[in-house]
């Protein structure tokens, strides 16, 4: 690694385009191998790595920012999935089996199929997912755009986060959004497949998981062993600084249990997690290895989060630069342009992986559970008489991908810049957790699933929670995300339970009379 030097903008752009081109090549190769009957995804390692799409730019940049404000609380977002994967044999395996039998294509499809294939319920889940996940997509665009701006100012550290005078065609977020839309359209909507397996895409996502892990570990190793003399030295120096010492205790931790609960549910309920874990699963036995490989991945990518946060505080002091950019700023401050570029590529990898899978998952939901059921109702379109609808389906999905990314970009432009990465991400977590009661009761409680109809409890539980009403206008929500998520979940579960019981009693009374 060479010290000094400069980092011209063309090199950053070239490296980014080179990386995205490599992704295209890998996805193309994965698709070709699948067509040749030698699929790369028939491998538990690829499956486990693809589930690691859970680690987004939020993990890559935001965890360090979170650690600076909340100490070890950042770990809750990864301990929850570890606990859920311990239950994976009971919960995930059942979901995979149900999905294979019923040809489930998305989480909206899954929830609606548990309640009598209700179109209304599927459409409602889709709308909540699209509205709820929008901030999460804009978070990724924000992370890439702001990391690009930070890197552009090399060797000056502590550059402004985002400039309001960026011309439209010079805006990194717009270009990234356009590239991601192209990737998702090429590899997520190439053809209509009954199983909804996108093998090339999954291969590319698994590759991205490797890149972001290696990038983060190298930055972490450099900070711990290059800037300091190992963990002992780093922690010893941090102990002398009061604002760093408190991060190593429970003092700044406020919402440990709610965050663990929230992340436990979202690792199953986020549309992209459902897509890679359940829909893209080619063989059930791959879950056996993924149950411990995915938590191990989470552990590895988090080992250096606290050291980087402490090193950032020691080096820059509190409040000098945004803690979300420590992963980039520390190599930059040490005159390591190559390392800073690697960190940028790692962050880009984390962001693009999430955006691609999320848009493909949401576009499938919009197409299958929202637009097509509506179109099929219009008799004058004569869709039911047409023999081949695949062209129409692909068109709708491609349009949906462009729409989602455009809205995500607009959200980032209008609202996203005023919030920290983690606050934006938590809003989407709270929204995705809304599906959990409907999903879990639907799987395990016959009383809930058999006696439900489109007007039954899950609808009310999805529609009545305070979180859903407030999500599109998040102003004022950012500080109360966890409380909001907690109350939303409680409200959701209670409404679902009581609604199911009322429904059940009414049915019994009717049958008795």
């Amino acid at each position, binding site marked *: 690694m060479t010290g000094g030097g400069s980092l011209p903008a063309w090199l950053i752009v070239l490296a980014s385009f080179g990386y995205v081109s490599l992704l295209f090549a890998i996805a193309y190769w994965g698709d070709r191998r699948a067509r040749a009957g030698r699929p790369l995804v028939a491998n538990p390692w690829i499956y486990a790595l693809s589930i690691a799409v859970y680690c987004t730019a939020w993990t890559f940049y935001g965890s360090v920012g979170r650690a600076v404000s909340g100490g070890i609380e950042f770990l809750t977002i990864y301990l929850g999935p570890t606990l859920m994967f311990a239950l994976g044999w*009971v919960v995930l395996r059942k979901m995979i089996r149900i999905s294979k039998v019923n040809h489930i294509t998305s989480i909206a499809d899954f929830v609606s199929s548990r309640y009598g294939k209700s179109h209304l319920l599927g459409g409602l889940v889709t709308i909540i997912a699209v509205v709820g996940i929008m901030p999460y997509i804009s978070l990724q665009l924000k992370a890439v755009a702001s990391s690009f701006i930070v890197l552009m100012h090399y060797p000056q550290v502590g550059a402004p986060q985002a400039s309001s005078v960026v011309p439209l065609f010079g805006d990194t977020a717009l270009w990234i959004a356009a590239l991601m839309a192209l990737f998702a359209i090429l590899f997520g909507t190439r053809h209509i497949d009954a199983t909804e397996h996108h093998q090339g895409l999954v291969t590319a996502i698994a590759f991205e998981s490797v890149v972001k892990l290696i990038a983060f570990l190298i930055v972490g190793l450099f900070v711990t062993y290059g800037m300091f003399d190992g963990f002992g030295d780093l922690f010893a120096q941090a102990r002398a600084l009061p604002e760093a010492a408190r991060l190593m*205790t429970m003092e700044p931790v406020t919402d440990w249990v709610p965050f663990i609960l929230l992340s436990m549910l979202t690792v199953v309920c986020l549309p992209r997690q459902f897509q890679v874990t359940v829909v893209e699963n080619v063989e059930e036995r791959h879950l056996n290895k993924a149950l411990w490989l995915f*938590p191990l991945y989470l552990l590895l990518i988090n080992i250096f989060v606290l050291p980087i946060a402490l090193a950032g505080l020691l080096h820059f002091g509190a409040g000098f630069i945004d803690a979300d950019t420590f992963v980039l700023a520390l190599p930059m401050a040490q005159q390591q342009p190559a390392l800073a570029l690697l960190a940028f590529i790692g962050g880009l990898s984390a962001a693009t992986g999430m955006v691609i899978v999320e848009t493909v998952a949401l576009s499938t939901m919009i197409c299958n559970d929202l637009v097509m059921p509506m179109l099929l109702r219009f008799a004058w379109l004569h869709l039911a008489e047409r023999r081949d609808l695949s062209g129409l389906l692909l068109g709708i999905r491609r349009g949906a991908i462009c729409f989602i990314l455009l809205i995500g970009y607009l959200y980032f432009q209008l609202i996203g810049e005023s919030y920290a990465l983690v606050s934006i991400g938590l809003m989407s977590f709270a929204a995705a957790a809304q599906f959990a009661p409907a999903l879990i009761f639907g799987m395990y409680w016959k009383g809930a699933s058999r006696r439900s109809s489109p007007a039954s409890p899950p609808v009310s539980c999805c529609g009545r929670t305070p979180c859903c009403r407030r999500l599109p206008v998040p102003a004022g929500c950012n500080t109360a995300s966890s409380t909001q998520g907690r109350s939303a979940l409680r409200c959701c579960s209670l409404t679902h339970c009581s609604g199911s019981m009322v429904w059940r009693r009414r049915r019994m009374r009717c049958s008795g009379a």
Partner: protein
Amino acid sequence: MARGGPLRWSSRGGRRVGSRVGECLVAIFGLGVLLFSPLVMTIFDRGAGDTVFGIPLLYAFLLAAWLLMIALIAWVMASQPDEPRGRRQVEAGPPQPGRGERPS
């Protein structure tokens, strides 16, 4: 191929062992809930001064508990077959008729 783990998989008793795998994993989940509960964590929260190999005690405990959970899950899952059952049966010879099956 000989498999490790606490629950050795067999083609005959696969279903019974499968349910025991579930039980073991639920027990590991319970252990995780206990280890990551604020109640247990406060025992290890002795300020930044207490360290293990230079790492703060609370942070070292969380990482160790996390690693323990992963190791336990991996150990239990080691008893499950990596290859599909059909392939194992072909390698092991023709399948034996089970209790509910009639030989033709």
